[in-house]
């Protein structure tokens, strides 16, 4: 089986997809954080009376 060098092929493909997934996760988590902050700020702006 390892005559065909499957092990490293697997490592390589896994690494490629892992990086992609990590970056996507990083993007979504950051997006969520920013959305939360927008909501928070909007609520703050609405609740405080305009000067």
């Amino acid at each position: 089986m390892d005559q065909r060098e499957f092990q490293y092929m697997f490592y390589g493909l896994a690494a490629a997809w892992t990086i992609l997934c990590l970056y996507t996760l990083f993007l979504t988590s950051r997006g969520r954080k920013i959305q939360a902050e927008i909501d928070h700020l909007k609520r703050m702006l609405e609740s405080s009376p305009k000067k």
Partner: protein
Amino acid sequence: MRDKLIYGAGIFAALYFVRNLYVILLQLPDEALQGAVYRIFFFHLPPYFAAVACFFGAAIASGLYLKTKQWKYDVFAVSATEVGLALAAMNLVTGMIWGRQQWGIWWTWDARLTSALITWLIYLGYLMLREGIKDPSERAKNSAVLSIFALFAVYFTYKANVWYRTQHPGPVLTIRTGDAGTIDPAMQAMIYHNLGAFLLLTVALVAVRMNLEDSQRAVESLRRRAHAIA
């Protein structure tokens, strides 16, 4: 408009990848000298080209920003650079794994490896510069200038390193099925197919990142309004 692009390009990229993976894993034969491991190559070269396209696009957008001072160019430049960095990381890591199997070492100070790493560091510097500047106009302007410098520097690094030393397989693709020493047309076609898939993915990711940058801008302006009231 941008949301449609995200979903459209994203879905197409996913389908394309599924199709490509099916061909790569189940239809293509092993390479004559390397065995199965050559399949990494389909996730090594295409991301590299996609990353280069990103950096190139970022430099052009940066030039346009300096000329027009329109935000969209700055937003595109930072998004493309960041996605480019992720793709370049993919290129570096897959390359290292392939090298470990083929050359027995994780890293060698070969021309292409070295210049890829330097490229990565240069663009990491771009993101760090952005982190360090608070005023959005100043940030956009200075990082645009850096992006233009970076592109020239990357080209120079690449050239200089090629003259210096190389043990990396040449730009001519060396994938063979038989003893003939020629490129298998099916394998070569697969490189282009996967490049297509990666480019679609890049479009989707850059669009997502641009949305994020827009929200970030919204936060900054909301925060300023909040400060004005408080």
